[in-house]
């Protein structure tokens, strides 16, 4: 069986870039642990065979199969069998005995080999097989440095996931979130953390005794905007991940909050206050020119951009309780158009990558839950069942929403598939975690 090389774009440059953005800086104490609460009814049974290593008898520098197993297993869509159940451990196509896998009721088998070509140069070859048909589904070769083996493992998981589900994988993406711990004297400590989507590789990008909140990714995934209360008032900062450089974008008198990058990355929508009245503004990041978009005496906040950048969705209590509204992103601003009508509380909208749906916080009796709203019909679908669920953020493939919830009195993260079927809990090792935001796809 010959190896097909279908993928040119997964060059090492890709992996190197992602890691450059994530490896610098101190490692965080708070790591996350993913646990499936409910998966699809029939996850795909599969086998991920430990990869062979050709490295002159030395032990493999990284357990690629282990990482791919964790990624795919934690997605809730696959059921990888344990290594101890495997009757054989092929690493090359010729060694596969399909009977060994049919007996185990496995639908697909992933095999691979890692080869050390030169010091710090590795080649990974992996192939996915359909067990019933005895056919190869895909095969790839990747070359990588040692430091990028973890990123390469996530790329393998992304490729396999897309082949088997038809949905692009998001294992190579990152999440940003806020971690709060309490010192022995009861005072708070806030950290803004960026981690791989599996919670590993976490690093602190800001650390403060004063609140940090509302992280937002730039569309290229290289910068994060956030709110910091250092200096006894709120201010909005934009920090470049690779260098740690940050710019103070807004520190006006009153509230400076809720930043959101425009899809072209040039503007920031945010909330400012004059005389205590919160309104939506945009700031051009290059010229610092700000524009006011709302003029009401209500609380107008939590702006987010439509996928084409032409509209801004936001929360307003102009009609009593908070509801979602939509306005054009450039003046002249017409009257805001109300989007949600179902329920007494709909807030903090986030637009799905395809623009067809909004994720919001929806109050259901006394419970705050994550729901999706069709922006055209206002139809609400509640996805979660917690008491204080908040801060929904779409994965860049639109298939999952990460959010913050409470468990045992602690703030934890969770994710739910956009259809509500798959639920995962992402626990923190230390303190409360909240305000998760999913990064865009890494750009080459």
């Amino acid at each position, binding site marked *: 069986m010959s190896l097909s090389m279908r993928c040119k774009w997964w060059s090492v440059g890709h992996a190197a870039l992602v890691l450059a953005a994530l490896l610098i800086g101190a490692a965080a104490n708070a790591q996350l642990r993913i646990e499936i609460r409910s998966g699809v009814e029939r996850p795909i049974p599969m086998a991920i065979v430990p990869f062979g290593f050709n490295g002159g008898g030395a032990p493999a520098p990284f357990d690629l199969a282990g990482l791919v197993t964790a990624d795919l297993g934690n997605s809730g869509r696959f059921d990888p069998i344990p290594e101890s159940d495997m009757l054989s451990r092929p690493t090359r196509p010729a060694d596969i005995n399909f009977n060994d896998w049919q007996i185990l009721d496995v639908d697909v088998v992933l095999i691979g080999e890692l080869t050390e070509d030169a010091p710090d140069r590795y080649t990974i070859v992996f192939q996915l097989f359909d067990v019933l048909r005895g056919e190869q589904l895909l095969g790839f070769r990747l070359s990588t440095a040692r430091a990028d083996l973890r990123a390469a493992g996530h790329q393998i998981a992304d490729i396999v996931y897309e082949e088997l589900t038809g949905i692009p994988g998001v294992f190579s993406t990152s999440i940003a979130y806020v971690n709060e711990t309490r010192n022995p004297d009861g005072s708070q400590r806030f950290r803004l953390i960026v981690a791989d989507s599996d919670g590993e590789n976490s690093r602190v990008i800001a650390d403060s005794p004063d609140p940090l909140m*509302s992280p937002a990714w730039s569309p290229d995934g290289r910068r994060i905007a956030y709110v910091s209360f250092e*200096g*006894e008032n709120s201010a909005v900062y934009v920090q470049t*991940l690779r260098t740690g*450089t940050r710019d103070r974008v807004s520190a006006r008198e009153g509230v400076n909050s809720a930043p959101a990058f425009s899809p072209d990355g040039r503007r920031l929508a945010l909330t400012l206050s004059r005389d205590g009245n919160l309104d939506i503004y945009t700031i051009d990041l290059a010229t610092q020119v700000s524009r006011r978009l709302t003029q009401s005496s209500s609380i107008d906040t939590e702006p987010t951009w439509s996928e084409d950048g032409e509209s801004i969705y936001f929360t307003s209590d102009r009609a009593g309780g908070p509801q979602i509204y939509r306005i054009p992103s450039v003046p002249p601003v017409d009257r805001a158009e109300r989007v949600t009508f179902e329920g007494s509380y709909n807030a903090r909208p986030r637009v799905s990558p395809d623009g067809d749906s909004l994720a919001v916080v929806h109050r259901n009796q006394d419970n705050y839950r994550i729901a999706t709203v069709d922006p055209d019909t206002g139809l609400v679908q509640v996805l979660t069942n917690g008491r*204080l669920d908040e801060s929904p953020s779409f994965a860049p493939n639109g298939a999952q929403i990460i959010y913050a919830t409470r468990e045992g009195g602690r703030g934890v993260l969770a994710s739910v598939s956009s259809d509500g079927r798959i639920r995962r809990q992402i626990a923190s090792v230390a303190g409360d975690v909240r305000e998760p935001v999913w990064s865009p796809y890494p750009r080459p």
Partner: protein
Amino acid sequence: MTRLKLLSASLAIAFVAAGCGGSGGTVPDEGTGGAVAPSGGGGADDSSSGAVTTALPGPGGSDISALTPQERTLVTENLVVYFEFDRSDVRSDFNAMLAAHGQLLATNPGVSVRLEGHADERGTREYNIGLGERRSQSVRQILLLQGAAAAQLATVSYGEERPAVFGSDEGSWSLNRRVELIYEQ
């Protein structure tokens, strides 16, 4: 009876909050601003982190030493106003207390106070920033009506980020929906 209990509980909380809050002198390096340590690289220095300045209006310092003993009691006790759920109008039972603060400020123009608005944990974080801001503005309006000058009053909203008590029950929530009056020393 209940209200008395709530008030006395609030005093202890106000002291605790003042002890660990950002306004105290307990945080090293606070004077230089930039208490946040951004990290991410050994690369370029942050040009703005050292330049954080507080935007508090009012005179350079607050002159609390000139107060009468009665006024001193007021500015060290009775420093928290509580609110109903999702409301920002000041309850009538706090009118007398705020009138006393307003008159104190009117007769002592050298004294300034910072109004920190807070919300309970329910609802979204940014909406709660709005609610806390609105609450601090409600208190500000009453103080202005009592003769305080705008320059004596600063407001900030922490939303739900700085709870007075950590807990997810009505007892905790009712203590967290508040505005704290923090006299500048």
